[in-house]
């Protein structure tokens, strides 16, 4: 059976830290994009055409929401990565325990 343990203890710990940070920050970013925060305006991928809108802010709002969905999906990916790192940490601890 292929061993499930692929990272060392330090890399798994880094993975957990990065994942927690990623989840928290990306979820918050997603929320802020969802409420159409003005401060994040420059990060929204609008083009010149979006300003020729019939219904003024709706196109921009739609773009905002698209970015926020991207952020939430990335947060979910980080949550999976966090779970994987956590498993690695547990496997590492078990291996250490058995050797001793």
């Amino acid at each position: 059976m292929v061993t499930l343990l692929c990272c060392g203890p330090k890399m798994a710990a880094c993975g957990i830290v990065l994942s927690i940070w990623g989840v928290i920050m990306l979820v918050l970013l997603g929320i802020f994009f969802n409420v159409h925060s003005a401060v994040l305006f420059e990060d929204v991928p609008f083009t010149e055409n979006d300003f020729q809108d019939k219904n003024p802010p709706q196109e921009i709002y739609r773009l905002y929401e698209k970015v926020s969905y991207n952020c939430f999906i990335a947060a979910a990916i980080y949550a999976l990565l966090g779970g994987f790192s956590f498993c690695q940490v547990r496997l590492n601890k078990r291996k250490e325990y058995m050797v001793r």
Partner: protein
Amino acid sequence: MALIFQSEEMCLVQLFFQSESGYCCISELGELGLVQFKDLNPGTTAFQRKFIKEVRRCEEMERILWFLEKEITKAGIPMADASVLGEAPCARELLELESVIEKVDKDLKEINSSHEALKRNLTELLEMKYLLQMIQDFFEETPIDLPDRLTFSSHSLTPSSLSSLCRFVAGVIKQERFPAFERVLWRVCRGNFFLRHSEIQARFEDPVATILKKEVFIIFLQGEQFKGKIGKICEGFGLTASHSKALNHCFICDHVILVFFSPKVLNQTNEHRHNVLTSAAVNIQNWKTKVKKMKAIYHTLNLCSIDITQKLVIAEIWCPVSDLSEIHSALIKGSEKSGSSLHPVLHRIESQQTPPTFNRTTSFTSSFQTIIDSYGVGDYQEINPAPFTIITFPFLFAVMFGDCGHGLIMTLFATWMILQEGHFKRLKNEVCALSDTLFSGRYILLLMGLFSVYTGLIYNDCFSKSLSIFASAWNVRAMFQPTGPWTNHTVHSSVTLQLDPVSPGVFSGSPYPFGIDPIWNLSSNKLTFLNSYKMKMSVIFGVVHMLFGIMLSLGNYMEPRNILLQFVPEVTFMLALFGYLVFLIIFKWCAVPSSASRRAPSILLHFINMMMFSYPESSDSFLYGSQVGCIVQIFLVVTALLMVPWMLLVKPLIILKEQKKEQRSTKELVSWQKKRNSESIQHLEGDTVFLQVNMGDVFVHQAIHTIEYCLGCVSNTASYLRLWALSLAHAELSEVLWKMVPHVALSARAYLGSLMLTVIFAIFAILTVTILLIMEGLSAFLHALRLHCKFAGVPVTLFAEFSPEMSQ
């Protein structure tokens, strides 16, 4: 609590205890770690001290332990850590420990030497084996035209029968020396020999464990003289060469047997050595600690003096007054342990010497105290700036680092280190010096992080984006018609638009409640505003911090007249010039409305004109009424200029006057004494000459102090501008990082934007930690340190407590 503001009050104490209990008492004091022993035998050399023999024995044991440790690490055996940090061993254990350690040492030496000998033997035997093999091969491949009476079998070699016909010498030589050997032979024997050589396939190991290549050679020669000559040459090259007579048939079998068995013996020796080392490795750290403690105790005993009856030991120690009872109880415990009936006596004595400086610290304050001490330890009972540094240092760091996102990460990291304190302390010996430094600064890091979150909220900067916690005070809609000047045409035709706070409704009148308005994050002239704000803020902080330092130094003045002579002019100079500057800044912030912004006077020009006494005619250049302003400013500049000669001249002149008065009185005394006794005149004259030389010193010292202070004021105020410079750098770096990294992923219109975001977020995280946290953090730390260096004092002796863990 007043104790931490000043260094502790110290006293000199004499201890009397019996010789038998001397060892135990000192070991108890060592465990306590609160006293500093004074050397009572300063004149004696190391060899004359009483306990020199014991110190030598301890040093010998240390040497053996060091050798053992080297052997253990060479063999790759892990050493157990020093277990419970137990008490120092008593004197009896010295003998026991010594015998155990010496036994291990002897064992190891024996094993090593037998290992060497066996290895050498093995090498020789192997060489011989290859030699014989080669000779055999050689005689096989070149069939010699022999007379029939000689039988020559392919399996056995009979060199003894061949020896009657020709002689040969065979041996083994290192490959690199072979060409030289050949050349020497050629020259000596003039070519009358036949040499064959071949390389040995196996590699040999030197005692120094380098791999050698060896070659086997065989020389055929005629004549006895040649044999002698070649023998000498071989000796010169350090080889063992065997002559044909020596190579016997039986020799081969013996050799083969020995070569077969030797590796086994070698292996067993190795195993035994490994066992000895492993058993030593278990205890070695403990032994080391014990030996170190014993050596420290004997060294300290050498510092004490023994009285004539050889029964009493006298020691003098410096200790804090508040710890006297603890020391007394430790001494009683020590004397009870050694089983003596008399308790040691503590006797406090007065001394003219300045005691060493001791600042009692907890694990929280110790890191701040270390920072202050690195600039210079304060005098005895001088005001200790360390408790104030606990707040000012993290605050100045935070002004330069202000970002609440980064500050939050720093705070969390420091909190994790503090919670894992026990874990880190156990790992103390294994981790590298860098993480050790980081761990010991964990409280500083925590405070720096907390303050950074605070200044980050004020600068409204979180990973370079602003947080709109409250509603912004600016309103863009009010710029449009009918309240403002903009039309649709204006919006479409201009590249940048400026919000005018004078237009009604644009600025709501009540500014953003806490921090900088988030709308500045979106504006392109953000830096124009922030630069001016941060520069002025830095100057204000600088002047306040310096004034605070001067106020603190008030506590250090011993004589009240020094306050008048030195403190008052210093404060007046500072306040007249830089205090006025701060006033101008704050006044301009409060009093100039935005409607008058076009005509607002520049503070810098204003200040320069003030110093140069040039007042132009136009009334615009004044913040407040021009007449009053003129008078006030002239008055301030003149006052400041008057302070300089006050600081420079008044004190030395007063001292000079006092000297002259004393001189006159001593002259009177001299003339009176002349009538009585003429011997003491030379003595008094010598004194007066000495006093005059001192006057020059006093003047120079005062001049240096004045210049240093005045120039220092100006340059230090300017150097606080680094607060602005570094916070600008941090903000810009943050922004560039955001634009280059997450911006790319967030503005991707592709469908796989989320995957890109995942990868790019990881890159963003790593870059934030390395560049913004580590690099910028270190840089801001360094600059905050530099701003604190004015609190340095004259270097004096720091209290060196006797504690065996720290000694030697």
